[in-house]
Structure formats: structure tokens, C-alpha cells
């Protein structure tokens, strides 16, 4: 646990200046007051991921999970903050080393169909990157892809097929094979099982877990499904409106969440049970990232909110060994 983290985020931040869509520009011409506005999708996130660790990332739609994942995978440049690879600031690496680091972190996306080029055969989808990056000579590409397909549980006879000739679960396996083709150390999985049926989802989760053992992979596993995250990750981070509000070893977090938002999330998540449940109404409204509440962003919905909460933002603090939470309650009552 004390080895230098493989990936380290330090104050990672992403701002988007939101362009108006066609309808909005049209509405503005008709006199509506709509401005271009900046969205702070991710705000000052600190997170260290140890080699071989699986960190789960959960939070409601729009809280910034994908944006964070894409920055970690090197697809999206941060607006501020530092990303370290084996302890070294990515910006200070030589271009060759940075290129190497970027290859070592690969992303697996949610929608297997949208992320695969429909006009390419599986052999090219999976084989192109390793050839281009000189990891595999072109002559050997086909044998290399065949071995990868076998590794993700696909018949190598499928090499010549196109994506539309596969089922959703098979396409997700192709997406995983493509990510593995450049021999990454870290996989960022963004809702990689969300589009799949329950029975197929279980197969893919098992594949991720097997690959972790076989290839000693490290994962940042993004999902809105708490059951999936609880099952697969060693530690879980909970995000709310661009910030991590709780981070802890998975069993502890799920047994005894500290942050009121984490509690609400775990309470509301339906579980398979034979008992019918009475749902309760929530207070407040999900705030917009365009107009985040002051202080603790959760305060309009928090049952424990106090005057301090709207005035001052609580810092993410270590409240017990390896347990982090950002809530003023920990300061007043203390752990």
C-alpha cells in the first residue's frame, strides 16, 4: 500500500465554456436571455491509485465522472492541476515518455457500437494501434489479434467480421481487446457494462476481474451502478458536482458511509429482495453544474445542513485511516 502510486491526480480541474446549441441560439435571436456559460465539470480532484488497485467512481449523472476519466486517460487536457505517472508530472516528461505513458492508460467506453468504427473489420479495429505504435510488426498483427480475441473470450474466426455482426456483449469484448492491444497497465472503464443485459453484464465483469489477475491491471472503474462498483472495486470514490465527497475502502464505505450524500445514495439504491419497499420523497432539487450552490454543494438537499454549510466548502479530510470525507459534521462532532 505504500508503493508510489501508478497514477496520481493533484487538484485536477476541468472547465468547459459551454457553447449554445442551435435551438438556444435561435431562441436568443428571438429575444430569450441565454448566455454562453462556463461549466466547472471537475473541481480540484486529488486521488492516488496504487498499482494493481481497482478504484470505483460513482455519482449521479452529470457530476463529472466521464470528464475525470477522460483526463486520466489523456484524451482531455485538464484546465488546472497535475497528473502524475509513477510519481512524475506528465507535463515534465519528454514527448516520447509522455507518449508511452498515454499508451499505458487506455479507456473502455460505455457504448460498444458507438466506439467502434463500423467500416473496419475486427482485425483492423484491434490490430491497428499496436502496429502504428510499433509494438507488433504488421506481419504478426493477425496472430496477435487472434490471441487477444481468445483472451477476451471471442472466437478468433471472427477476425474478418464487422462490428454490426456482433451482439452487444461481443462488441464490448472487442472494445476491451482493442484497449488491451497496446499493452496498457491501467484501464479507465467508463460505464463499460451499463449498456449490457444483466446476464451479459456478469460475463464482462468476470472478464475484467480475470484480466486483472492475468495482466496485473489497475482500474479506474466508473459506474452509476452501486452493486457493480461494490463488487469489483477495492476502494470507492463518490463524486458530487465535480468533487470527490467520500473516498474509502469499498467494504467500509458500503457498510458505514460517512458523507450524507453517500448515505442517501446507498439508502436509495434498490436491492433485489422479496420485500416490497415504501419509497420516500426527497427534499430539494438536483443542482445544475452551471449554477452550483455555495459552500457544500449538497447543502440544499442535505438533512443535516447547518448555517456553516452554505457559507464554507468542507475540505476532503482523512477522518480515519484511509477514509476520506468532505463534510462539516466531521469537524463539529469529530470521529
Amino acid at each position, binding site marked *: 500500500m505504500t508503493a508510489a502510486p501508478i497514477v496520481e491526480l493533484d487538484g485536477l480541474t476541468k472547465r468547459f465554456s459551454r457553447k449554445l446549441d442551435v435551438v438556444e441560439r435561435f431562441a436568443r435571436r428571438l429575444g430569450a436571455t441565454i448566455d454562453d456559460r462556463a461549466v466547472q465539470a471537475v473541481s480540484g480532484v486529488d486521488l492516488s491509485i496504487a498499482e494493481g488497485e481497482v478504484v470505483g467512481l460513482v455519482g449521479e449523472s452529470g457530476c463529472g465522472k466521464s470528464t475525470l476519466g477522460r483526463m486520466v486517460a489523456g484524451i482531455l487536457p485538464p484546465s488546472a492541476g497535475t497528473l502524475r505517472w509513477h510519481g512524475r508530472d506528465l507535463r515534465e516528461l519528454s514527448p516520447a515518455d509522455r507518449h508511452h505513458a498515454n499508451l499505458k492508460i487506455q479507456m473502455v467506453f460505455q457504448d460498444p457500437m458507438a466506439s467502434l468504427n463500423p467500416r473496419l473489420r475486427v482485425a483492423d479495429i484491434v490490430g491497428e494501434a499496436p502496429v502504428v505504435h510499433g509494438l507488433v510488426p504488421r506481419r504478426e498483427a493477425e496472430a496477435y489479434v487472434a490471441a487477444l480475441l481468445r483472451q477476451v473470450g471471442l472466437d478468433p474466426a471472427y477476425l474478418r467480421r464487422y462490428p454490426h455482426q456482433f451482439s452487444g456483449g461481443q462488441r464490448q469484448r472487442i472494445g476491451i481487446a482493442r484497449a488491451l492491444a497496446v499493452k496498457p497497465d491501467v484501464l479507465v472503464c467508463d460505464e463499460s457494462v451499463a449498456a449490457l443485459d444483466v446476464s451479459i453484464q456478469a460475463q464482462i465483469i468476470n472478464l475484467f476481474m480475470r484480466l486483472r489477475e492475468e495482466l496485473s491491471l489497475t482500474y479506474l472503474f466508473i459506474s452509476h451502478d452501486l452493486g*457493480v462498483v461494490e*463488487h469489483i472495486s477495492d476502494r470507492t470514490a463518490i463524486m458530487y458536482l465535480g468533487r470527490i465527497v467520500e473516498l474509502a475502502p469499498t467494504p467500509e464505505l458500503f457498510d458505514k458511509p460517512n458523507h450524507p450524500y453517500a448515505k442517501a445514495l446507498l439508502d436509495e439504491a434498490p436491492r433485489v429482495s422479496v420485500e416490497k419497499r415504501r419509497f420516500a420523497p426527497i427534499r430539494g432539487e438536483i443542482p445544475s453544474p452551471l449554477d452550483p450552490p455555495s459552500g457544500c454543494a449538497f447543502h440544499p438537499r442535505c438533512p443535516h445542513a447547518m448555517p456553516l454549510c452554505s457559507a464554507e466548502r468542507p475540505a476532503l479530510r482523512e477522518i480515519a485511516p484511509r477514509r476520506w470525507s468532505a463534510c462539516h459534521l466531521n469537524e463539529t462532532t469529530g470521529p
Partner: protein
Amino acid sequence: MTEPLLRVDGLKTHFLTRAGTVKAVDGVSLRLDRGEILGLVGESGSGKSVTGQSILGLVDPPGRVVGGRVLFQGEDLVGAGEKRLRAIRGRRIAMIFQDPMMTLNPVLSIGTQMVEAVQAHEKVGRAEAWERSRRALVRVGIASPDERLAAYPHQFSGGMRQRVAIAIALLHSPDLIIADEPTTALDVTIQAQILFEVQKLCRETGTALIWVTHDLAVVSALADRVAVMYAGRVVETGTVAEIIGNPRHPYTRGLLESVPSRNRRGVPLRSIPGMTPSVLDLPEGCAFHPRCDRSTGACTVMPELSGEREDRAWRCWNPVAAEARGDAA
């Protein structure tokens, strides 16, 4: 004689495509009493949405209901005229689609659309209709309703649009709501709010509900009874306690066992091997047999739906034993 609110009998909806006949729904029977909540579950492509659309006569060509009956309060809706169906839709049976923009008009304000929806079926004044719309928005967790009523759909996030579509379905306290995966895109806390309102409506006004989903957790928390579909057919039906506590069809059992939270952390999940069959190329007999660990020679013939009662039945030659349940460790 207790005639159920809705009785679907041997419903068949087929799509005549160039590649062949897609038997999307092939002999589905369901029944629903007033105030009852039925969960309709099954994997992608199993025919859940087409079943819902068929009940309301909303199947798009080349799809057609080619057999069976849909008895709503004794009246057969299959073959009913478009005028009659329009009178029933919205007021007595409301549909919530997976995509809220199927319900919403992008060029009209939310308020205009909701007021129209109220006045389409009831003779009430504008002020009264506006007030009802306001209350409906509050019920689905939308704050500052007056401002929101003046806004247009594009000014809402996807989740908020979906809640507006749900609010519109709740407007008239219809006799039956068919909801097609309406909360899959929503945060669990908002989902819980919606489920709270839906439960309340069913309890207080006797509205019956068909909730289409692939999320077994939602179904188990919300529904009274469950129908499990596979490849265009109902393969098992029963109360939530019966389906979750003692599934008899191997597919239902497999589904339950693959839910992550029913497995021990970190160990491989139990999973159903193979993949969902293409409806154009269904195996002979029981469509589940290539994936089934209980299949025998008999399974190349399609089993009938049979069991303890009309609403506790399974379609399997070798059902899972009554007491052996694959409980999570």
C-alpha cells in the same frame, strides 16, 4: 366474477421485414387488476417494449398485431378504431416512453403542453389546468414549477425531461400506466422520488401499472407481480416473492444469480453462458435451450406455460425444484 382491468390473451405482434418475419411478441398473456403493479422484465430484444406498444395500438409498421386480444375493462382494443384508441390514450391508459422526446414537443413550452394535455380530456379552465400542471411537476421533484412551466424542453437536462413526461402521465390519474424503462437514465435518489409518487398514485387512486425494465432491483422493490420475457414469450410469472424467492425457470434463476449484490464481493459472478438469440433465428423448441444447464432432449419441443395458478406459471420442461433456491452466500 372478477374481470381484471386488463387481460392480454395470446398476443402476437410480428414485423414483416425483408430478412424475414420477426416474431417480436409471440403469444404473450398477462392480467392486471386495479391498483396492481406488474413488472415486465427480460433482456434487450425480448419484446417488452413491443408488448407495451401493442396494448395501446402504437406499433409502427412494418409491425402488426397478428393475433390475440387486449381486453381493457372487457373491451377488445385489438381492432378498435384509431378514434376510440385516441380517446383511451392519455386519459385512461397513459404511456411513458424510454425517450421523453416521444412525449414532448420541442417548440412548445412545457406549460403549454401540460395545459393542453389536461384540457384534451377534461373540461377545465386555463387557470385550473395550470395549477394542476404545477402540482404535477412538484410531485416529480421539480422545484420552482412556475419558472419551469414557462421553459422549453431544450432548457431541461435529460433527466428533467423524463420527469416532465412522467408528470404528464400522472396528470389524469389514469386507470393504467405503461412505463417503458422510464427511470434508467435517472440518479437513484431521483428515481426513488419517482417511485414514491408512482406507488402513492397506485395506492390512492387504484391506477394499475406495467413497469417495463431490465432492473430486477427496481422491480422487486416496486411491483406486486412479475412477468419474465425471453425471445418474445413470457417464460415465468408470479408474485415478487415467488419470482425472487423461488424462481422456477432456469433463465429467471440465472438472471437473479448474476446480480452483483447477490454474489460475494470479489469472487466471479455467476453468469448465464452464451448470448441473447436473434429473433430471426430462434432455436427450435425452448428458445433458451442453447444457454440452459438443465436442458434435455425434451427441450427441442416448446413447453407450454403451466404451474400452480394462471398467474404462477413457468414455461419449462425441467423447472428448478420448488425449494432449491440459488441463494447468495
